[in-house]
């Protein structure tokens, strides 16, 4: 059971291997092990997470370690949806984990092995708590954890890996020489390497066939009487299978015991929050401003108007203009614009100011505070299930929550009639003339449902960029916030250039 070290007296069912973490707020429980070689607690880099950690940790560590691991797992998940070639997938995972969840081998120098491994272990166990509650979450967690383990297993030092495997004490039955010779023909048949030496030096394990479904499905092992003969070289399948099945079982057990988790309101919200942010794709590759303050620093309520005129993509410009004119937007419009502004760098308190100002006199303070403020706070992850929703991508805007008759959200390229679109574009962007070739170009793209192409063309025209360059290197607009980022970056470049020129001009005068 989960046992925070507060003074409640809990009937402890300590035979239950679900999780045993002691919490202590006052003391950060890092042992004095310091740098150096592996300690007795973490002798190997790889970990099957069989024994729950029983050490004291701070609340902060509880959360930060979990979030660090969560980032890695959701990155792995989004990578695996992109059907990359296997080698490329592995190297992407390796690079990402190196940055966010470094785990060094025993031979590594200048690494605090204990600290890294402790972080790895605690992160894993905390996430178990958040991810055990539904079969769907469990499956996703196991899949991502498995991919992470596999990556580490394959990049591990050969000797250390062998030692680690020995420590697990699998009860795999080894095929003896007699049996090996009896099935020589069949076993050879299933080997890639056809040489005699290879056969002689290879050894086989015998396991029930259903423990290695991947090898069975690809006909890579010989099977007789329900037993699969797995050569040493394919051992990884066995290890992964064992890892996954143990984790699945443990998660189910944790799920059963979770309702009995007796804790003092400090962990519950953290645990809930972790699972829901995984679902909404935290740290996924959707859109992430380079730091929490937004790519170009904080935007205040006063600045929104200026930024809108210079840097908003058509969909947001449309919403903003409407809001300015009508002092009102319908729900999905507010959501689309609000999340976008958050991505641009408008902090929560500024957002409240901004919306209050936009609604103006049409709404009483009372009504605003009661009905609208909550929604704004909600979209910043401060209310309800506390999900920090990411700004909507073009794909979401195009396909989700189609605008109804009274709505103004959506994508102008998709949801405007051609006449309305061309007058909207020519009115909003003086660079695009209504009867120009460019406009025809844009409308043609729209007709062929290449909305992002049309949008990218507008970006090029309004920023004086050559056709085909898009947001740089030919990238097309896939997210409204990418448009803003690039637009502001271009502006900054120009300002810098002017400044540099002025500086050098001054210097010339000086000298």
């Amino acid at each position, binding site marked *: 059971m989960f046992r925070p070290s507060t003074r409640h007296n809990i009937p402890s069912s300590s035979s239950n291997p679900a999780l045993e973490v002691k919490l202590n707020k006052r003391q950060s429980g890092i042992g004095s092990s310091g740098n150096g070689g592996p300690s007795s607690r973490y002798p190997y880099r790889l970990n099957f997470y069989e024994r729950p950690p029983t050490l004291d940790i701070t609340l902060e560590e509880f959360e930060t370690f979990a979030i660090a691991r969560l980032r890695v797992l959701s990155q792995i998940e989004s990578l695996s949806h992109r059907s990359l070639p296997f080698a490329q997938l592995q190297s992407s995972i390796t690079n990402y984990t190196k940055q966010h969840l470094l785990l060094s081998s025993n031979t590594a120098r200048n690494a605090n092995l204990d600290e890294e491994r402790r972080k790895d272990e605690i992160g894993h166990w905390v996430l178990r708590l958040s991810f055990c509650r539904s079969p*769907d979450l469990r499956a996703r967690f196991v899949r991502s954890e498995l991919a992470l383990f596999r990556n580490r297993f394959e990049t591990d030092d050969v000797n250390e890996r062998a030692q680690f495997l020995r420590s697990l004490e699998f009860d795999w039955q080894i095929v003896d020489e007699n049996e090996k010779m009896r099935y020589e023909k069949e076993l050879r048949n299933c080997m890639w390497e056809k040489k005699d030496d290879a056969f002689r030096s290879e050894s086989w394990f015998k396991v029930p066939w259903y423990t290695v479904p991947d090898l*069975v499905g690809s*006909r890579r092992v010989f099977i007789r009487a329900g037993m699969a003969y797995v050569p040493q070289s394919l051992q990884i399948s066995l290890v992964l299978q064992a890892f996954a099945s143990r984790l699945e079982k443990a998660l189910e057990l944790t799920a059963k015991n979770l309702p009995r988790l007796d804790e003092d309101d400090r962990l519950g919200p953290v645990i809930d929050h972790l699972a829901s942010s995984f679902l909404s794709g935290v740290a996924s590759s959707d859109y992430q401003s380079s730091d929490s303050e937004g790519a170009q620093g904080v935007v205040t309520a006063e600045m929104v108007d200026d930024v809108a005129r210079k840097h908003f993509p058509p969909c947001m410009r449309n919403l903003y203009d409407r809001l300015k004119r009508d002092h009102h937007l319908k729900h999905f419009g507010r959501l689309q614009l609000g999340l976008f502004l958050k991505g641009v760098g408008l902090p929560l308190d500024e957002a409240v100011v901004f919306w209050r100002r936009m609604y103006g006199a049409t709404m009483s303070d009372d009504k605003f505070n009661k009905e609208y403020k909550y929604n704004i706070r909600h979209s910043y992850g401060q209310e309800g299930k506390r999900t920090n929703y990411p700004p909507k991508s073009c794909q979401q805007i195009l396909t989700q929550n189609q605008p109804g008759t009274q709505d103004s959200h959506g994508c102008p390229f998709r949801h405007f009639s051609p006449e309305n679109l061309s007058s909207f574009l020519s009115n909003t962007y003086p660079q695009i003339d209504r009867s120009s070739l460019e406009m025809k170009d844009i409308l043609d793209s729209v007709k062929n449902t290449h909305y992002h192409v049309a949008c990218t063309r507008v970006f090029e025209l309004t920023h004086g960029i050559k056709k085909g360059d898009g947001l740089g290197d030919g990238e097309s607009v896939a997210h409204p916030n990418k448009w803003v980022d690039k637009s502001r970056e271009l502006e900054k470049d120009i300002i810098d250039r002017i400044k540099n020129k002025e500086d050098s001009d001054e210097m010339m005068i000086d000298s």
Partner: protein
Amino acid sequence: MPIPIRDDSMTDYDPSSPQVMNAFYRRLFPYRPFFLWLNQDQVPSKLFTHREFAFTLAGDVYIRYNSFHNSDEFKKELIRLNPSRFEIGPQYSARPRDRKTLAAGALQPQRRELVFDIDMTDYDEIRTCCTDKKICKRCWGYIAAAVKVLDHALRETFGFKHLLWVYSGRRGIHCWISDQSALDLNDEQRKSLVTFLEVIKGGKEQAKKVNIRGSKDDAEYHPVLGDALENLKMEFVKLILHDQDCFGTEKGWEALLAILPQDRDLIGGLRREWQSDPTRSSVDKWGDLQQAVAGLKKGNQLLFKKYERAMQDVILQYTYPRIDAEVSKHRNHLLKAPFCVHPGTGRVCIPVNPDQVDEFDPDTVPTVGELLNQLDKAAAENGETPSQRRVEEYEQTSLKSYVEMFEKHVAAVLRDSRSTKRATKQEGMDF
């Protein structure tokens, strides 16, 4: 109500009439062994009580997620609903009938017999005797060959013991595996097993459907296919060459030439020869091909090997089991129960002995009409009223031998299930 008896003349019972089906469910369906077979125990267990049954009623009404506390309740409902057929699903994590009161996602399939379905439809492109829904003793040969290969692979390779083969009522066969290890397989494991066994792949537009030699198409077979091939060589000669004469027509031999490696001399030579003498039988043509390929042996070893492998592939393509893979991959797939009556043919879905599958003739399978006639006759001879009889009524019909075969199978399943249960109990005591 006993059905009225007319002297000598047989009553023509129509399997699509509700009264006939009702009589079948009341008097003939073997409830006891059927319950034990699914339940694997005398006392109702989750394997029965949490099991889904789906009924097809008159007018294509389909009711899913039925479940029953025991055999009696099942019988009562079956007689009341009087379905034209019914299907069996998996044991769920809760009673399927309660699904509306459960939290979303709480009803998950858990255990289920491993099942296979072979249907004649998949053989339409290579059978010459019948088409579409028809089936005769001759095209049963394909099913027989498939059963033998599959039965062997499932027993020898995967080590299963309790296989029940059931005639599907028209032109196919089902297999139900009741081993404990089979019940426990999850979907991923089922999928891997099916992929392992599946050899014939590809749609209508793909001529060569056997591609099992790796990317370069030159690797050795997996041993289990080597086994299968040895057995199928005989079947190929008997069934494909002699009986079905698959390469007799131009369409037939062109299909053969299309899946061989395209060496212009060899293929062209054969085509000319066969076109000039269209009366050559399939046996002769296969001989021509063998001869032509043997001629390569001296001059072109590489091409010879290629053709040799391709000819093995041909044998597999024409005789290897064509299983409906989707049925086996998921636990929640429903499959028609044994001893149902096929609504179209009136035939009872009886068990088939895999050792005698060659002798099986779909035309001799008892129909519900015949069985009811036999009951009428027995009643007339004995002059007894049904209520006084202690024996089961099916014992007076030709269904008897099939039920006995089923009971024998069920007894073996129960023995095994009991011993595993005892073993786990003992283990439990050790804690």
